[in-house]
């Protein structure tokens, strides 16, 4: 049986992959085009010799959300099958630890601000990743309302 948190977790994972694979913004100027990807931005920070900054952005926009979504699926697949997830308690503790550092909704605002700044001099078209990121933020908010940590902890004990 598919439960609401599981469905939202799987949806979030698909949207997360799309957000990382497709361009965020398409930038057109004098017949030339350029696109920006989240991972390309992080890579470029590394190239520009800002490894700590790159690490902070990598963690808050890629690793923390990925861990959060993976753990959602990890916990809710066995629960949907009526089984107890292995290392249930550790998984729940990890979710609580990682959640404050997942900053996708703030990153989305950053994409919007960057787009508006660029729109002054060039034609900006939001890419597929911008849309999927917007949906992802909504799906994660919905998941937060569907997941009851208190009940999960009771199931874990």
């Amino acid at each position, binding site marked *: 049986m598919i439960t609401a948190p599981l469905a939202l977790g799987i949806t979030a994972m698909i949207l997360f992959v799309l957000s990382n694979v497709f361009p*965020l*913004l398409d*930038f057109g*100027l*004098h017949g*030339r085009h*350029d696109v*920006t*990807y*989240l991972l*390309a*931005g*992080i890579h*470029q*920070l590394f190239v*520009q010799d*800002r490894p*700590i*900054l790159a690490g*902070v*952005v990598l963690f*808050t*926009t890629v690793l923390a959300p990925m861990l959060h979504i993976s753990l959602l699926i990890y916990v809710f697949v066995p629960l949907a099958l009526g089984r107890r997830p292995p290392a249930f*308690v550790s998984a*729940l*503790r990890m979710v*609580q630890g990682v959640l*404050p550092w997942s*900053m996708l909704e*703030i*990153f989305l*605002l*950053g*994409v*919007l*601000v*960057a787009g*508006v*700044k*660029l729109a*002054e*001099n060039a034609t900006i078209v939001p890419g597929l990743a911008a849309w999927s990121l917007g949906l992802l933020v909504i799906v994660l908010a919905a998941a937060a309302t569907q997941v009851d*940590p*208190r009940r999960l*902890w009771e199931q*874990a*004990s």
Partner: protein
Amino acid sequence: MNGGADTAAAHDLVACHTCGLVSRYPTVRSALRCPRCRTALHARIPRSLSRTWAFVVAAMLLYLPANLLPIMHVTSFGSRRSDTIFSGVEYLMLNGMWPLALIVFVASILVPVLKILILIFLLVSVQLRSRSRPMDRLRLYRFTEFVGRWSMVDVFVVTVLVALIDLGQVAQVEAGGGALLFAGVVVLTMLAARTFDPRLIWDNAEPADAESTTY
């Protein structure tokens, strides 16, 4: 917890920081773990005040250079321009993008200052054993905890912009030293808010205040 609100600690009860399970606090108080999730149990976060002070002071030290140093350098058509946090807001304002300028101003300039000031106020008020308006002080704490993360927005703007490299001479964006320092301020104030134990506010509160409080 003498003379304060009627707290769980006064009844030898302690709630787990991680899973919320309430346990009875035995008389032997060392190496105690939550029976459900194995987190170390503490009636209050250990050394909460000194650890929070350390994070707040570190954030204050980074705050000025984070705002004075450029967060990015933009080179377009041969001319090079450096942006600080403030000039970024100014740019949005001068170009008539008021709603966005307001959001970035609040997130990047107002919130970090407010957060540091509120945390200092909370720390001092607990250390002076203040009994006034505990509920309002708790609200201030919740505000700083909720709003702090949004200051990261400028760091993300830089990340999106540096990825535009294929345009070559037309425009190139480089991250500046201020970006890392600014991210440091945000992370340090987040850690400060998390190590501050809001229950300390109630330990000195009048019992009457606690009774009249509705959640």
